């Protein structure tokens, strides 16, 4: 594509194409978008985050990541669409403009670059990182079980061959540690949204314990509003609730850690579908998925703006 206007949002792209897209977007909107490298992957690839900012210093911020599970291709594809949408809507959509006038947005489109490259080159259904575990012939750690929140408890596997292997220790994966370091050093992230597929859920903490989150009532109410907004576009139905109640016990998860760090608005999505294609969602559904998800994201971002803490 010659520009982000002619970029094809309705197909899946390789890592190089996505990184190329990010560079184009930055070049086209130098006063709004910048690209940060927050670390390197196990295999040495750069880990990039797009920063959308209208100015200010260390403003309160919203974090969005897609693709921590590499085979969930509709999430990276949606992340690309969100990035473009942000640049289109700023200055056009009053509600969104108000958000970006006060807050920064950080968007990590490919959260697990090694895994994503592997899905393109060797195994389309690869989910984990690509780190080697000493003493095992199996590769990779589930980066959504590697966070320091109930790490290693029930709801993750100690078997390196399992798809939910939690790793040797919390933050053992550089892809996770890079975000942890970034979140800690930033210190002013107010909403953290981690996007997965599939099964159409909007989830909040906790996954490792049945104890309700301190802000459960507010998180639940906001989730209800977000899924209502999402459904308003195409009627796609999402369930919502705490991770442990809505799906199953899961320890070492991303948003349990962010919530425990004090990021109240910590959510995770599971995007389309509910049981036809799974991780192999046809490319024709990328844009509708991204469009409807954006409405839910807007709801959460708007609430975050209007309920400072």
């Amino acid at each position, binding site marked *: 594509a010659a520009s982000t206007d002619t970029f094809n949002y309705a197909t899946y792209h390789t890592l190089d194409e996505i990184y190329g897209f990010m560079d184009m977007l930055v070049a086209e909107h130098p006063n709004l978008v910048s690209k940060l490298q927050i670390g390197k992957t196990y295999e040495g690839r750069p880990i990039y985050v797009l920063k959308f900012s209208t100015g200010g210093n260390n403003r309160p911020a919203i974090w969005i990541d897609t693709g921590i599970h590499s085979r969930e291709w509709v999430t990276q594809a949606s992340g690309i669409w969100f990035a473009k949408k942000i640049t289109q809507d700023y200055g056009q959509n009053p509600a969104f403009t108000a958000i970006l006038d006060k807050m920064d947005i950080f968007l990590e489109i490919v959260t697990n670059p090694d895994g994503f490259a592997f899905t393109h080159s*060797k195994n*389309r259904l690869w989910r984990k990182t690509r780190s080697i575990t000493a003493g095992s012939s199996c590769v990779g750690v589930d980066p959504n079980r590697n966070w320091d929140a109930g790490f290693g408890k029930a709801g993750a596997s100690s078997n390196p061959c399992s798809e939910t292997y939690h790793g040797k220790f919390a933050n053992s994966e550089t892809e996770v540690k890079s975000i942890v370091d970034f979140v800690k050093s930033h210190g002013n992230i107010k909403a953290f949204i981690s996007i997965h597929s599939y099964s159409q859920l909007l989830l909040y903490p906790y996954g490792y314990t049945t104890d309700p989150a301190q802000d459960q009532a507010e998180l639940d109410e906001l989730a209800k509003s977000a899924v209502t907004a999402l459904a308003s576009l195409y009627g796609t139905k999402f369930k919502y609730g705490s991770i442990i109640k809505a799906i*199953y016990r899961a320890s070492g998860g991303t948003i349990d850690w962010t919530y425990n760090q004090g990021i109240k608005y910590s959510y995770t999505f599971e995007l389309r579908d509910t049981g*036809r*294609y799974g991780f*192999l969602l046809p490319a024709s559904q990328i844009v509708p998925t991204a469009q409807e998800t954006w409405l839910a994201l807007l709801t959460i971002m708007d609430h975050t703006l209007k309920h400072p803490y």
Partner: protein
Amino acid sequence: KEDFVGHQVLRISVADEAQVQKVTELEDLEHLQLDFWRGPAQPGSPVDVRVPFPSLQAVKVFLEAHGIKYTIMIEDVQSLLDEEEEQMFAFQAR
């Protein structure tokens, strides 16, 4: 590239806790090389699992023997992957 010819994704409907437990047992049988796309959770919540061709018969027999209902969600994973790849190539060529 890894080949998924003949792999199926089964949607398993677990009716009660005992069936959830049975499916969990299935998850522990490493030699079957099952890939749970949606893991066993609670009764009423579907379980989706990719089953390699060599394990298909064993898994289906196991489920049927325990009265656990299932449907075939994806008949042949590789055919979907082929379509996906063709579409990507077509866009790149264009």
